[in-house]
């Protein structure tokens, strides 16, 4: 079918509309609130708000931490991606699986457990007698800790993205280099990495954008020492409850959006002319030989450091009656679990709600994204890049701000559907807006790789556009859609910042409950919830893993 048929034009318009509704609309509403609070344009005030030294400093901090965090995330996730995809490392599948877990733990929980880990109260350091004396400043506080945790938190994103690229490198490219006399390391450096450059850049950009929008980590590691990033500055401005607060924080959000867009722009710049399409054959594989065990040891050590230690710190906390009580046979108790899982109706409800909201958002996106990408695929490169950037925006701005945009948009009753405010739908919609990009990216890549003649063969078989979408494109893109949905689910399940403003009684989410316990000084109960969510997610993934055996390879990022 030609590009310009009326049918295609209609579907292209529909897709542009969907993207505009999900991604552009909230951003535009924010910009309006920022430049024209109360309906009157005031650019002077807008500029003034941005020119404040605090804002500029926060912007610098955001750039700094997000950039180095992304670099470090690539350094951390990259080697794992190579090891799991391209080598015969023993135990590479469980390693890949475990590396994904940090993504599933809410950032504030991660930050908290790391603070415990290195603080004077560290149970683990205490056991080996290395806990610093009370009063020692926690080494995790400040810039370096934030960067480190960005790396840990976003390494899974890098891992997933990069793996997709690495698994597509045909083995001939590697073997040709080895026959040319290059050893494995040299091949990695001169052939493999340059060839997957688009994926490296995409991974770094995603990690960067995630860092720009992160709230939980700088909130716990930066705010105590007055190291503010834009999201934490925005949060802090919220506490100045005066009438000027909305324009102020929306103005700052516009700044965040600009940073994210800059990241996307850098990405397309770095990718110019770098899109190699190769017919993927058998994937390349390196033999590690006598380094196998050594490297496996290093891998487990890293996993132990970034996952097991913090998680066990969390577990230890969840097992004592009150924070600060040492863990021992006398003190160990399941009362926190009993309290949050049995006694408090709201936490049980929150588990159900989060499963429901994250699940619906994941399902809606996983299904909806297929027709969207099918149309996007036919628009030019330039459109694809532009829309790709726009879709990133709601993911990059702090969740609180997106939530405010949703309130501004959906409070007034809309024609046909009425007001969505204070319903479960507004949370699901906000999730869909925020995590749209996570679902879109993998599916767009996959649909781009579906050979066009499969669709044409269906067309000459007499199938119309809709039938082709349902019977050909959708099943072929399904694996990627499952992967995208999984990412969405995992990200939304523990989500806090968006739902914080959007929940209503009966519709509380896990993140909200966890944070409110944390705020009320009930850290041990919060830890119990955190541990339970990790357990739920792990169980869920293991179930998927079971099914994954029957799915085509590459659907589950660790397989």
């Amino acid at each position, binding site marked *: 079918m030609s590009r310009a048929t009326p049918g295609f034009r209609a579907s292209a318009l529909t897709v542009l509309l969907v993207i505009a509704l999900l991604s552009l609309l909230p951003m535009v509403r924010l910009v309006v609130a920022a430049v024209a609070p109360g309906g009157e344009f005031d650019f002077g005030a807008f500029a003034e708000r941005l020119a404040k030294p605090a804002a500029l400093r926060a912007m610098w901090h955001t750039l700094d931490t997000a950039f180095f965090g992304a670099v470090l995330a690539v350094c951390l996730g990259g080697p794992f991606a190579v090891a799991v995809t391209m080598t015969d490392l023993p135990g590479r599948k469980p390693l890949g699986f475990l590396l994904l877990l940090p993504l599933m733990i809410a950032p504030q929980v991660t930050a908290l457990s790391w603070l415990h880990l290195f603080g004077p109260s560290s149970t683990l350091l205490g056991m080996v007698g290395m806990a610093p004396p009370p009063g020692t400043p926690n080494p995790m506080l400040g810039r370096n800790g934030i960067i480190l945790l960005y790396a840990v938190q976003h390494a899974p994103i890098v891992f997933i993205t990069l793996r997709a690229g690495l698994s597509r490198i045909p083995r001939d490219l590697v073997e040709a280099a080895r026959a040319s006399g290059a050893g494995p390391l040299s091949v990695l450096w001169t052939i493999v990495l340059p060839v997957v450059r688009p994926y490296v850049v995409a991974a770094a950009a995603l990690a960067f954008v995630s860092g720009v929008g992160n709230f939980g980590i700088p909130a716990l590691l930066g705010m105590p020492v007055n190291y503010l990033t834009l999201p934490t500055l925005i949060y802090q401005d919220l506490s100045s409850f005066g009438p000027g607060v909305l324009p102020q924080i929306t103005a700052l959000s516009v700044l965040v959006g600009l940073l994210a867009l800059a990241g996307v722009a850098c990405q397309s710049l770095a990718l110019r002319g770098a899109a190699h399409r190769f017919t993927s054959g058998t994937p390349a594989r390196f033999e590690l030989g006598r380094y196998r065990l050594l490297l496996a040891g290093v891998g487990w050590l890293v996993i132990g450091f970034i996952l097991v230690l913090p998680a066990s710190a969390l577990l230890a906390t969840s097992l004592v009656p009150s924070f600060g009580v040492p863990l021992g046979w006398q003190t160990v108790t399941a009362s926190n679990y009993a309290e949050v899982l049995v006694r408090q109706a709201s936490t049980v409800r929150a588990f159900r709600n989060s499963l429901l909201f994250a699940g619906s958002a994941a399902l809606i996106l996983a299904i909806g994204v297929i027709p969207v990408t099918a149309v996007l695929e036919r628009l030019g490169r330039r459109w694809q890049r532009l829309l790709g950037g726009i879709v990133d925006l709601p993911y990059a701005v702090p969740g609180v701000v997106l939530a405010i945009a949703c309130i501004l948009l959906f409070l007034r009753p809309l024609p046909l559907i009425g007001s969505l405010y204070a319903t479960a739908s507004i949370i699901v919609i906000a999730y869909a807006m925020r995590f749209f990009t996570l679902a879109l990216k993998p599916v767009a890549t996959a649909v781009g790789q579906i050979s066009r003649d*499969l669709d044409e063969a*269906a067309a000459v*078989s007499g*199938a119309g556009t809709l039938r082709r979408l349902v019977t050909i494109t959708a099943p072929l893109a399904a694996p990627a859609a499952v992967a995208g949905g999984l990412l969405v689910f995992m990200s939304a399940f523990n989500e806090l910042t968006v739902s914080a403003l959007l929940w209503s009684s009966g519709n509380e989410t896990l993140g909200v409950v966890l944070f409110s316990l944390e705020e009320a000084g009930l850290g041990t109960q919060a830890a119990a919830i955190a541990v339970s969510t990790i357990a739920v997610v792990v169980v869920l993934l293991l179930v998927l893993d079971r099914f994954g055996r029957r799915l085509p390879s590459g659907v589950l990022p660790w397989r």
Partner: protein
Amino acid sequence: MSEIKVERLSKRFNETAALDAVSLDFAAGSFTALLGPSGCGKTTMLRLIAGFEAPSEGSVFFGKELMADPQRQVPPEARGVGVVFQSYALWPHMDVAANVAYPLKARHVERGAIAGRVGAVLDIVGLSRFEGRRIEELSGGQRQRVALARCLVADARIILFDEPLANLDMHLRASMVDAFRDIHRRTGATIVYVTHDQAEALALADRVAIMSQGKVLQAAPPQEVYRAPANATVAGFVGRGSIVAGTVIDHAEGIATVDVAGHRFAARSAGISSGPVNILLRPEALRISPEGMPATVLDSIYRGPVHEVRLALPAKGQELLIDNTEAVAVGQSVHVAVSDAWIIPDSEPS
């Protein structure tokens, strides 16, 4: 009546003219091979007929019905053509039977009838026992036959093939050629068959259209294209052979006497030619013999049944190709007798 008719059809991609004002009729029930080097526009022609692309200029008719002009195109799903792709384009998420049944389902054939029809078609292509197989479990030739079955199942009046055998090995290819010929006989469909393999084109088609740079150079039955190519490009593309410069000594309608390197022989000609001409000499019409054109052996390559011998004529740059049952020593001087020759029309002598 002509089943397909393209009129002054052009297709431009950015600056390149993939198809350049081509007019061609395809008679009902005919089997036309589009033959030409890579990039000459064969696939483009097919895609315009199928409706995957819109013409830049010109029009496509099926019978009397306008299918496409630059303004309006009937979408592919409404044209009722069958297409077999080079890549097979089988749907990996369906098994063999589901792939073949798809066109029937898309056209809302009633459920009960489908299974029978699918079985019958799979029978024709010799895959009766493969209904439940996954596509990955098939060999290349089996895949191509599934693609063929899928195209046949809907009884299309027009079937388009785009290099259907390019990915198969020689032996599979031979058996598929037989299958295609058989299908044409059975269905009587109008077939357009794209290939760059001349042997395939000559063996299958009742008409061969030689394309080059977006134009059709000659459209004629296989024997005519082989024996009387319209110009040097066609001669070079179809079959082996050498083109040498000669002079017409005596000319008549249809047959002329020519002189090459001092040796005279008869040559077929399209009309009356005179003066210097280009002469096509096919290897099978040449023979090393006691008399004939003097030549020197350049090399001799074993090609299975025969040795292909390259010879240099006295005039600089003029070479001959002949097949000889025995190897010949390089550098040896020989004479070559000519039993058939063709004066290439329409070209400056080289």
